[in-house]
């Protein structure tokens, strides 16, 4: 069957064991987690977990249903029409041309966020496919370290 990529938002009770319930469900039933982000929802006792996953349509449907069965889960949203962003931090050596790095970051709606004695850090927040392209493009500047965040999404 055809694998599709899907972003799922899960609104949960903000309690200590809830992330392990969600992650454990994915592990126990053999579902994929491509990225996972979690943070409290402002002004509430709830948190939002955003998971990017892959699977055939039946698997995705099962993931949604199984998540809904978890007691501390309020809402599961399978995103279709969404704005989806991911963040990446890249550390470059200052032996590379700083101006060129800055131009690259700006091309991807990013910027240089820190410059030290021998390195600088670029930050880009954009759609996941653009992040992938940015990482590919930054390879020519010999990055020392690349730290990718998970996906966050909001329904349009």
């Amino acid at each position, binding site marked *: 069957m055809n694998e599709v990529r899907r972003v799922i938002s899960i609104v*949960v009770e903000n309690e200590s*064991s809830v992330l392990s*319930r969600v992650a454990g469900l994915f592990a*126990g039933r053999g579902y994929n987690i491509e990225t996972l982000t979690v943070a409290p929802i402002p002004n509430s006792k709830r948190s939002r977990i955003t998971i990017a996953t892959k699977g055939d349509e*039946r698997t995705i449907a*099962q993931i949604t*249903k199984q998540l*809904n069965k978890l*007691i501390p889960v309020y809402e599961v949203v399978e995103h279709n029409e969404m704005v989806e962003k991911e963040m990446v931090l890249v550390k470059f050596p200052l032996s590379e041309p700083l101006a060129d790095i800055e131009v690259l970051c700006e091309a991807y709606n990013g910027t240089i966020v820190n410059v030290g004695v021998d390195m600088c850090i670029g930050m880009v927040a954009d759609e996941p496919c653009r992040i992938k392209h940015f990482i590919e493009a930054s390879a020519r500047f010999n990055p020392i370290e690349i730290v990718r965040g998970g996906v966050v999404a909001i329904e349009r």
Partner: protein
Amino acid sequence: MQMNGAQMVCEALVAEGVKTVFGYPGGAIMNVYDAIYKQDGFEHILNRHEQASVHAADGYARASGEVGVAMVTSGPGFTNAVTGLATAYMDSIPLVVISGQVPQILLGTDGFQEIDAIGISRPCTKHNYLVRDIAELPRILKEAFHIARTGRPGPVLVDIPKDITAEMGEFVYPESVDLPSYMTIPKVESSAIELAVEAILKAKKPLIYIGGGAVLSNASEAIRAFAELSQIPAVETLMALGVMGAENPLRLGMLGMHGNYASNMAMSETDLIISLGARFDDRVTGKLSEFAQYAKVIHVDIDPANISKLVAVDYPIVGDVKEAVEMLVSGLKGKVQTKQYDDWREILARYDALYPQSFEDSDEIIKPQWVIERLGETLGEEAIVTSDVGQHQMWAAQHYPFDRPRQWINSGGLGTMGFGLPAALGAKKAFPNKTVINVTGDGSILMNVQELVTASEYKIPVINVILNNHFLGMVRQWQTFFYEERYSETDLTFQPNFKALAEACHGIGYDVTTKEEFDMALKDAIEQDKVAFINIQVARFENVLPMVPANAALNNMMLPKIANPDKGEK
């Protein structure tokens, strides 16, 4: 009212109407046991192993429909209970299990008898709690019972650190629960029912397929009325035996790996499956890609996750089985023609005549199937029958005439050896006036045999019928068929003296080698007020048939030799 956490636990159990708690004390749960000592709201049964406590609570729940309650200590007490939790989880049995935990100050320090109970039990409970504040305890206990018994039922664990059971707090037991994130019972949509009714009226070969959910939903009466009205034949899973009643002319039998010929052929040829609280388990479907290839599927299930999990469903109906079936009956009334499916039932009757559920009896040696049929003739509807897991379980399922739901208690989903005896204790506690028989094997019975002592101490006289073939029979059967008779570690010739073992535990034992001896032993055991072992030497190499080999299509059955080729056409 001010009281400590331990007293709160007792008060909550009383408030929930709990009459019997099965358990085993230990360090971290001692405060609660101290409170139990001082109360008389419920009885406590001291099992001799925590696994048995949970199985006993489970047997109690299956027999009565009430929430079963077990209590264990932390660490090894809890880990021993895990098999019981998983058994109940797989069969959706409502339990509340209370475990002690190390004091909060020791949590996460690898303290003595500390284990992460919440982490371990997460995949085998419907929900679990670690209590972190005495103020939360009454609410959590209330929620635990509510979650266990509503929606798709299941076991709930409440893990309570020792300092919480010692701490004083204000006890007000909540009257209701406030769980906005918890879906209980989705209301059956009448539009879904209408579509299903249309599909039933259009079908030529419809088949009612009944699962354990029908028992949990107490839907037996409604389902019998549905079948009666529509004259649609029905098959039952291992978990649903008794829903239709053995004598019901519309009941074809059990389907699946050890289902009878007519049931499996019906499922293979039907054009409309009406699934009522069943979940298309692999032991039912056989090879999935060849399962019921001509069928559209109506699937009634309280758990939306079961719908289209394994088999694509054309007419999903989410909700309580009983409610949905009652709505189907109203929808079909006046529309369905009673003769509509006569041809289909005739085909199935021919299949049943061709290969009825049968076995070749013997005068020289007791056949295990004979024992079950004899039990059925002698006890019939009166008895509750529990079982362990293996050949004896399948023979009991095939040959005992179950007439009502909750009469047959076994571990279907997890397949837990050692379930039968403690479950029988639980069932007998729920129904002290009924005869409770545990059909077991010489392998399974040793996996919780210590419960003989519990049975004797509390005078819970259950009768264990041991079909003794000196083999781990079901594994041996697979080795015969699929491993060229290499009987790797399945020969149980070296075994205890079962009669003496029962007697050593203050019970009564019988060694049986003839049919007459069995009749006498059973009669005597029923009259005695003691836990009994009836140890029966049965035919060693008898196989459970029919059998669908693992991952073969459901109509690809190994059949017994004595079919009736003259009775069927084809």
